[in-house]
């Protein structure tokens, strides 16, 4: 009886550990890392330029959207805009918003820029490209046309490109500010030695990575590391309260 309880419990625990390590982390984000982005032609402001001409002037964040999207594209762009305001206050990086829908023309992209109030912002480029399949293949992005809904079935994707055109970091889905800043740091060629995989069941995480400072911030777990020293101070204090004025020996 006792044995079977232990056995059941431990099997359950093991299963939980295995499950806990699975979800949360999007493994496709690691795909195409450090590969060069396709040097496609992009059209904006009435001109056609090469992508390499753009990134050679400084790192670029590519956001892939399409204007007729009724799903994730709008909240996604809004979030990128807000994050850029805070995280890129020194305006060292540019955001290239590219449509992956062949139906989008320069007019649609212009209207999109105006809608977000970014039409006169030098840090933002709203562009189309005739070589869209080359671009999305090179960054590992796979939108699928759903003819029933007349929408693309796709996830939100941000791609960080450094000034040599290498993909340094990708973010899939709507992500938090920390993840966003880690992308910005990576396109500026800062080496982040290690990062944790998110885990929902983990209460006492040792360090949470803060991309703003580039350091791991103390998490709740770290407080546990301080606890032994603090507790033993308390022990010393308590024990020493019983000091006899006169030596007893």
């Amino acid at each position: 009886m006792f044995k079977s309880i232990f056995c059941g419990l431990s099997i359950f625990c093991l299963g939980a550990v295995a499950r806990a390590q699975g979800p949360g982390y999007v493994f496709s984000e690691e795909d195409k890392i450090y590969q060069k982005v396709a040097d496609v032609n992009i059209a904006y402001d009435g001109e056609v330029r090469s992508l390499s001409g753009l990134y050679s002037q400084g790192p670029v964040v590519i956001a892939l959207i399409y204007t007729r999207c009724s799903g994730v594209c709008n909240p996604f762009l809004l979030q990128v805009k807000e994050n850029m305001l805070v995280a890129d206050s020194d305006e060292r990086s540019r955001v290239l918003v590219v449509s992956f829908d062949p139906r989008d023309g320069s007019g649609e992209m212009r209207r999109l820029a105006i809608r977000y109030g970014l039409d006169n912002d030098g840090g933002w480029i709203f562009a189309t490209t005739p070589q869209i399949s080359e671009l999305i293949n090179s960054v590992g992005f796979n939108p699928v046309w759903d003819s029933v809904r007349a929408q693309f079935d796709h996830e939100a994707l941000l791609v960080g490109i450094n000034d040599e055109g290498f993909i340094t970091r990708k973010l899939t889905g709507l992500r938090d500010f920390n993840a966003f800043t880690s992308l910005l740091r990576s396109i500026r060629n800062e080496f982040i030695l290690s990062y944790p995989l998110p885990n929902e069941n983990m209460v006492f995480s040792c360090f949470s990575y803060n991309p703003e400072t580039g350091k791991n911030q103390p998490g709740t777990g770290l407080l546990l590391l301080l606890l032994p020293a603090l507790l033993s101070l308390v022990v010393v204090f308590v024990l020493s309260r019983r000091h006899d004025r006169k030596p007893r020996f």
Partner: protein
Amino acid sequence: MATLQLKKLTSVWIITILVLFVLAIVFGILMRFNQGNAIHLSPVGFYSMMTIHGLTMIGIWFVAGMAAVNFLLQRYIKVSAGINVFALVLTVIGVVMLWLVTFVGEFHTGWTFLYPLPFRGAWKEWATPLFLLALGVLGIGWFVWSAGMLFQIFRKYRPAQAFAWQHLRKGSPEIETPPFILISTVTLIGIITCLVAAVLLLVLYFAEYFSSGSFVNDALLMKNLTFFFGHTLANEMLYLGLASLYELFPEVSGRPKFKMTWYVALAWNCTMVFILTAFFHHMYMDFVQPFAFQVIGQMASYFASVPAAAVTAFSVLAVVIKNPIRWSLTNTLFFVGVTGWLIGGVGAVIDATISNNFVLHNTLWVPAHFHTYNAIGNVLFSLAFFNWAANEFGGKGHTDKFTRLKMTLLIIGGSGFVIMFYIGGAYSVPRRFNVYPQEFSSLSILASAGALFACLYLAVIVWFLVNTVNKCLKVFSAA
């Protein structure tokens, strides 16, 4: 001074420790022969042995230091015999549980039981909870023991006096703190701290074990806690040994007692603080550990060990050089022990340097250095105390006509044994391999050679055991 009761208790400690020591050495020798392909153990057999070897060695030399400090503290303060008995009983229960877990339950995580390995191994299901429980039993016994002694120290000395802070100021202080009290205080506080870390670790393990998967631990945090406990305990046990050296070495050599000076006070206060972060050097190769911690780890590793080692070595040398010394087995053991400790310390400092650790971490260099400062360092301090105590109990003088022979064999056996580790470690042979792959086959002969040297060491230990146990048993017949 020492009551008959305390003598009896200490005798029981000494006999238990020496018997367990011999058994644990035998396991060690078997493991080295297995690595040298001279014998063939099953992997589970090998790793169960490795686990119990580590646990036993850490455990017995820790309690050896504790028993010695407890005995010698009686010279300054009154220490509770009840707590000593309590610690003895819990230690024996804990050890029996651990032996059950490893040999019947086939539990083989190594003594570091890095999370989540205890949940992920091929052993009996009851082994993991029983193992954690055994650690809990030992932890409680040892916590009560150290808190009890600390309590008694603080009854006589204010904390500032126990830390010898009055010696850091100019002029000679009114109340002098004996070095033994300072080292004992510093060490006992360190022990309490790392036992608290152990409690936290166990709580987290049990929380995960009983949470049915809704609570998962962070592997990095668990690793930090494991070494907070494990590394610090292994370090503090060395300092327990040193406490008895400070107390006994000048005395048995026929020299005046060590005086407290500001260097000694400063060095040991340094040790007390730095020792608490030195364990970070176990995480050098975990790149996720914040860089600041890695730097602190390297700093603390240097500053926890170097000042205390330098002060101790100099004090011992100043006693000996060109002075009339009454050499006996006791002070020769202390003297050789300091040498071994320093040599092991050099190996440790080399490994605690991050750029070296990159190619030394988890190679045989690690067992090389810790076997040096244990097998021919700390163990000798405790053996010296055992020998001294046994002579006190046995009532015969402190002379031993075989001192030179015993020491020579011990030194040859011990250093031959560790040299094989060092060579293997420098040439990248991994530690904790039950057999070596093809590329190290030329170096695996070193393992067998090391085992042969260890046999020599074992022979001296058995000889020592017979002598010491005979003397210790006289305490019981005297009553």
